[in-house]
Every structure is written in C-alpha cells, then in structure tokens.
C-alpha cells in the first residue's frame, strides 16, 4: 500500500456559509461567504493560494460548468481552478485534490470549495438527474428517497428486523439529528422533533417519511490546506491534520451481478477499511471521537454504522436505540445536525462535514462542543446504494 497522507497536510482555515433556503443569495454570494470565513481563519491573502479545486454537482441550476465560476466569483489571482464532480461526494473530492497537491509538494497552500444552489428549481427536493441516452431507456425514473429506502426493505429481510422496530430506529436517528441541529446557528433546520412526529410523518418513499429525509439546501463550504510546517510558520497551533482520505467507486458489481444483498453500501466498507489502514486505526469503535456521516436518509445513517465497522452486522438498530451515536453517547454522530438538519447543498456537504470536525477538534464548536475530541471521521456518499461513490476521511489532532 502507498504511504498515504497521514499528517502530511494540515487544515489552515475553514469557512462555511449558513445553509438553508437562501432565497436572496446567489451561488456566487454563498461562495464568497464561505471563502471569506476560510481565508480569515487561515490568516492569508488570495495571493498565497497556489491552486484551487471547486465542487458543484448540478451545474445547470447552479453555477455552470468548469472552474471559471469559482475563479470569477472569488476574483482569484488567475490560479488554476479545477472543477471536480462526484455526485454528493464531490466536496470530499475537492478536498482530496487539494490535499494531494500539498502532500505532493506541488502546492504550498491550496483551496477547496464546494457550493450548491438548489432552491432555484421552483419545487422541493432534488431535480431529476440525467444519465446519458441509454440508461433512461431502461432505468426507473428514480428519486433519491426511493433508492435509499430500498436499503430498509433489504435490511429488514436480511436480518429479520421487524418493520416497526426499524422504523423506530430510523426515527431515533432523525430525532437525534434535529436535537443537534437545533444548537447550530448555521443549520438549515433548527426545530426539535419527537419520535411520534417522525413516525407519523407523511410517507415520501416507503418506508421513509418526511423526517427520514435530509434537507435540500443552498450553501457553500471551504477549506484551506497546507503543510504542518507552513501552518506552524504562519503561527497556527493545535493543528488538525489529515490521517486518511479514501474514495471507493462502484464498478457495477452491486447493480449488475447477483451477489450484493442490497442492505449496505459496498464501497463504504472498502473506503472505511482503507481509511482505517491509512490512519493506523485498529478499533474504530474505541478510537474515534465523533462522526459526520452521509445521513441523506435516516436508513443510510443506520446501515453506515455497520459499513464503518462501528456496529456489528445486524446490530446497528440496537446501537442506535441505545443512544450510542447520540450527542451524549460513546461516539456522537451528526453533532452539527448532519445532512438531515445542517442541510445538504450537494457539492458543499463533504467540506461541511470536515468543518464541524475541525471546529470540534479545535474546541470552537460553542454550545455543541464535545469533551476532548481527538479523532473524527467523515463519510460522504454519492449516488445510490447499488452504484455509488464513497469517501471516508479521518482527521485528528496532529500527534494523535
């Protein structure tokens, strides 16, 4: 295995716009909001940036294609700006590119920024994705909720889980995230909900109700990365460094052969194994301090606990119901509200996850601050359970 990027790259600064229905903010405004915060946090000027990576998914309703929308919106000093797109994991891809550039020594300081403007469609939820000219001739006119809802039907059958019990566990996931999101001033949804509300909400895609689905939000997030040496030279202390950055992409095995059982995300398990190896983590359930996972739907978060080897197979329902991932549990998950409540501006989400872990590790998370977190994990999933992109990143304090 390659040597990896453990402790070779540090976070110099981060920024995140308020997520939500930003009716009066353009994608350019959102980019500026996140960028200004990140650059102020980093304490550098634009002339110190060597290169930038830009993540946005739905270019047609957002910023348009290529790197130019970011170069122009931020008036960057004619540095290289490269757009990356990898479904909902695009933000993590932009970070990976910037981190790799620094780790390679090609750049001293690099910027990664993700943005998505989703509330200019005229309706709720995500627009339908187009996938070339062949797939639409056989593939269902599918939407995200129903793609992920299928995890629940397959999971129930595989482990013989009662439908009502699974629904309650899913409700617990969402109730927890709403409670967390309520404490986060940048979160899209800041209301506390009850289990009963979650259980009785209108069905969006069997068995997912309204509260099993994450917010569809406008927002942007940015990170400036550099080497630990440069960060220290710039006066930074309590450095947060990258321990692992892994991405796994489906190769068709799940969708086009008969071996995958439909109850989990194959790529998540591969990316998690690689990330733990890269970070030198042997027992993630004991070693990780907090998680930001891709809770696009409550059932996704639930099966992800098994995909990240935090819960034993078939045991996530019990761990969730026991509060293992609650704010006061062993490994708090979505302490910022997650996709569920912080919101899900697609191209920004992976960087938003990193933002919360960065704040927590630096002790800057205000009313939601956890006690002495040392190591955090982000899990950023794009696509749908049977074909997807999964990024698992681990960041921590420098000498952990």
């Amino acid at each position, binding site marked *: 295995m390659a040597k990896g990027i453990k402790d070779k790259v540090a976070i110099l600064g981060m920024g995140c716009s308020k997520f939500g229905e930003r009716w009066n903010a353009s994608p350019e405004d959102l980019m500026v909001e996140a960028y200004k915060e990140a650059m102020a946090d980093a304490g550098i000027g634009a002339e110190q940036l060597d290169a930038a990576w830009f993540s946005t998914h739905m270019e047609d309703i957002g910023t348009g294609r290529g790197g130019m929308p970011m170069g122009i919106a931020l008036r960057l000093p004619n540095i290289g700006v490269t757009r990356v797109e990898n479904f909902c994991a695009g933000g993590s891809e932009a970070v990976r590119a910037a981190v790799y550039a620094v780790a390679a020594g090609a750049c001293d300081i690099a910027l990664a920024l993700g943005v998505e403007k989703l509330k200019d*469609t*005229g*309706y709720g*939820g995500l627009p*339908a994705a187009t996938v070339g*000219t*062949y797939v*639409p*001739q*056989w*593939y*269902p*006119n*599918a*939407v995200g*909720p*129903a*793609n992920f*809802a*299928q*995890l629940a*039907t*397959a999971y*129930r*059958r595989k482990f013989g889980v009662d439908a009502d019990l699974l629904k309650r566990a899913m409700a617990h996931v969402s109730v927890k995230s709403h409670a967390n999101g309520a404490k986060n001033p940048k979160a899209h949804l800041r209301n506390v909900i009850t289990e009963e509300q979650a259980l009785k909400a*209108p*069905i*969006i*895609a*069997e068995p*997912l109700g309204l509260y099993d689905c994450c917010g569809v939000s406008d927002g942007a997030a940015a990170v400036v990365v550099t080497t630990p040496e440069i960060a220290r030279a710039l006066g930074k202390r309590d450095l947060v460094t990258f321990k692992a950055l892994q991405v796994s992409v489906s*190769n*068709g*095995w799940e*969708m*086009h*052969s*008969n071996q995958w*059982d*439909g*109850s989990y995300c194959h790529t998540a398990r591969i990316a998690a194994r690689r990330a733990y190896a890269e970070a030198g983590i042997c027992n993630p359930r004991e070693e990780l301090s907090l998680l930001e996972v891709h809770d696009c739907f409550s059932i996704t978060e639930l099966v992800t606990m098994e995909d990240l080897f935090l819960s034993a197979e078939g045991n996530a329902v019990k761990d969730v119901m026991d509060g293992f991932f609650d704010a006061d549990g062993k490994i708090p998950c979505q302490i910022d509200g997650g996709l569920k409540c912080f919101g899900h501006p697609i191209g920004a989400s992976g960087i938003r996850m990193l933002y919360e872990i960065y704040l927590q590790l630096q002790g800057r998370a205000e009313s939601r601050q956890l006690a002495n977190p040392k190591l955090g994990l982000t899990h950023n999933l794009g696509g749908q359970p*049977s074909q997807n992109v999964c990024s698992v990143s681990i960041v921590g304090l420098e000498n952990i």
Partner: protein
Amino acid sequence: MIGIVGYGGYVPRLRLSRKAVVEANAWFAPQFAGKARGTRSMANWDEDSITMAVAAARDCLGADEDRSHVAAVLLASSTLPFAERQNAGIVREALTLGRNVEVMDITGSQRSALSALGEALLRAKADAGETLVLAADNRETRAASAAELDCGDGAAALLIGRDKVLAEYLGSATVSVDFVDHFRRAGEDIDYVWEERWIRDEGVGKLVPEAIAGALKDAGITAEQIDHFIFPTSLQKMDVQLAKKCGIREAAVVDGLLTQVGDTGVPHALLLLAGILEGAQAGQTILLAQFGSGAQAFVFRVTAAIRSFRPRTGVSGWLLRGVEETSYTKFLSFKEQLRLERGMRGEQDKKTALTTLYRHREAILGLVAGRCEKTGEVHFPPSRLSYTPGQPALDTQKPYKLAERRGEVLSWSAEYLSFSMAPPHYYGQIDFEGGGRILMEFTDIARGDVESGTKMEMVFRIKDVDEVRGFNRYFWKATPLRPQPAASDAKGSE
C-alpha cells in the same frame, strides 16, 4: 390440413366499474342509467395496442425460448400508437423473433383482425411457415359517450399453420363495401358514428348474413351445424338476431363478454374465439364473423388435437385476474381525456436518442442480457466486460433472454415524489432465476402486493411518453407473479 395451431388472449387487469362512470356523468348524461352494470376492461396508463399485442402473443407462444417456427407477425388494430414506425416491428423485437420474420400492420376497419387471419391462412396454404396473427385495441372514446361504456381494451393472438392443427380451416367469405357506420380521419382520436338503427338494418343486418352464407357455402356445411357462433357487437342482441336470420341455433351464440370486458374492437372476435377454444370439443364447428367496411366470416372445425395445447393464462385466466377500478378520473387520465396537474417534476424531457435505441434494441425491447461463458453470471445490460470481481473477462457474454424468466424482489420502494401516471411509483431490484439483476419499475401493483422476496414476472410496457415529439419508449416492467385466482377473488381497486 391448415388452421389454428395456437391461441392466446389478453385482458388488462383493470376493470372499470360502469356504475362509477354513469354516476360521475349522471348530471350530464342521465340516459346511460341503464348501462350502469358490470365492468369494462381498461388498459393501464403504460399499455397500448403494442404492449397488449405482446401480452397476447406471449400467452399464445408460451415461455419456450425457441420461437423460430414463427415466420410472420400480422398486427391488426385500429388504435396503433405509430402512424409511421412499424408497430408489428416493435412486437417482433419484444418477442425476440428472428430478423427475417415478415411483419405487417393491418388496420383501417373493425374487421382488420379477420383480414389478417385471411392473409395468414393464405400463407399457410402456400406453406410459408407459421403466422402469428395479433389483434389489439386501446379504445379511444369521448367522456360521457355510449362508446365509453360499451368498449373495452384487450388483445388476442392466433398462430396459423399446418402442424398439430387445433381447429381446421373450412372456408370463408368476404364482403367489401364502403358502408360508413363510423369514421375517423387520420390524425383524429375519436370515431364519428351514424344512427344506430340504420347500422343495424342496412349494415350489420344485410352485410353480415351475406358473408356468413358465403363462408358456410365455402366450408360446405349448413348453418344448423354451427356449434359456436362468434359475432362481437355492442348492438343489443344483434348476435342473437343474426343467428336467427342465418339459421344458426340460438344456443350456439357465444357470449360477447360485454358485462366484464366490453367490446374490445378489432381483437374482439379473436378474443372470443380464444376463449371458446379453451373448452371446445373435437368435431365442433365454429363460425366467426365481424362487421366493418363490409363483413367477413370464417368457419373452423375443432380437431382431436385441441387438448394438446393450453395458452399460458388464457382468456378465462385473464378474466379472473381483474380488479375493479372505481376511479373514473383515473380512467379519463389514462385515456388522455383529462389532464391532471403533473407538477414541475412532470416537465422532464423524455426525448429518446434513436441511435442509442437502435444500438441497444435487443436489450431494451427484447430484455436480452449477457451471460458470461466463463462464470455463468448474467449481466444486464449486456456489456463487453463482465463484472467478475478482480478479473472482468472481455467479450465472454452471450445473449441471454430474461423476459420469460421469473424474478424475485431483492429490494423495493414506492414513492410519491417523482411524477407518475399512477402513483405511488414502484420500483426495485429484481433478481432473475438463473441469474441477472435489474433495477426496474413495477406495474399492475397495489399496496401490499410486494415485499422483499416476492416472486415477479416480466411484462412489456410503455416506459415513458415523449409528449413533445410524440414518441413512446417501451421497456419491461416487473409485476407480481399471480397464481390463477378463484372466481370469487376478482375484486378490489388499485
């Protein structure tokens, strides 16, 4: 000997309650109060004359992968979806028949199914191989019209040939006259109909007996010898009156299925024939006549081989599979008589790349997957590389048909978010017996019909409609495998 060597039918699952229609329109059309009895068959939104013809053909041909005995497909209908693009050609692709099979659309009158039958018999006489005669209609009628209540949707199939003849062809006659009881100019949807009394007296009452007399003479038998007289009509008791006029025993008159199905139009005579053949006895004679731009009649005699064949579901089976539909607005919406609000999600462009369709037509229209010769794994869509982890083999996949194989639901959902003509929108992953997996849409389904592990079968349906350019996309969908129900089970609404 030439004649019928196979038969099948198809009646859509939905059966619209006539009472629901009459009550909805009572304020406007109180004269139909007397018609508020029984049901009429109603095509689902994703069915048309092409998909129903495919269903009837599969009922007739069975699950056998070898369909090389079929040399020609004649598709008769007065509601073909395409005016240009051979409709029977789409049926041929769906049935995965050979590329040298002759295909033909036959249309323009209510007796075009019998025109197709005559053509098929000529081909059999010339020893040109077996001909699959298909007839289907997805009736288009105006809201609050008599036709709306009288009509039904359906399809039928006959296989005409020389081997193992189930019903021997004895004779026929045709009367071709431009008697315009109704008409529909090209591009129009709905028929314009003349006075019923004139149609009865001058049309049916005179032209059909002439055709029947000619057919009986050609067959060399008398009217009294007829055991089953098939004459589809929505004119009340017209079949019985005709029998009387022609000297056919009243007991020989075959029930027109009007209470359950309605008059399905072009396919109706063949649908009734397919129903009668299921229980017919060796030696019985069948007279089949239809009216339209004249009249046509055929005589067959059932052979001793009749019990050697069974359609897969058969007309009797389709009749029992119905579920009563009480939503009149659903019917109007499916028949494009009522435009329901689709929301912005209904605006998505459904333009079909015809180059792509042609390149992948066997996979899309025929549901042909690729089976890796090395591993035996089945992949859909077929591809150059297999999906074997770690060692994807190149060019090892051979065509492997999935349409007649059963599947099982691996995972599923039903959602209310995307635009669907019949919400909620069901889809999920199907694992096929023998290998192969497709994430696909489900149809003819209701709440409680499906769970992970439910056995499913494939049906050929409309995938999407491109309203901007006037194009239908066809693909296969999964529907729960339904055991033959008892007669008392046919109720409920989807």
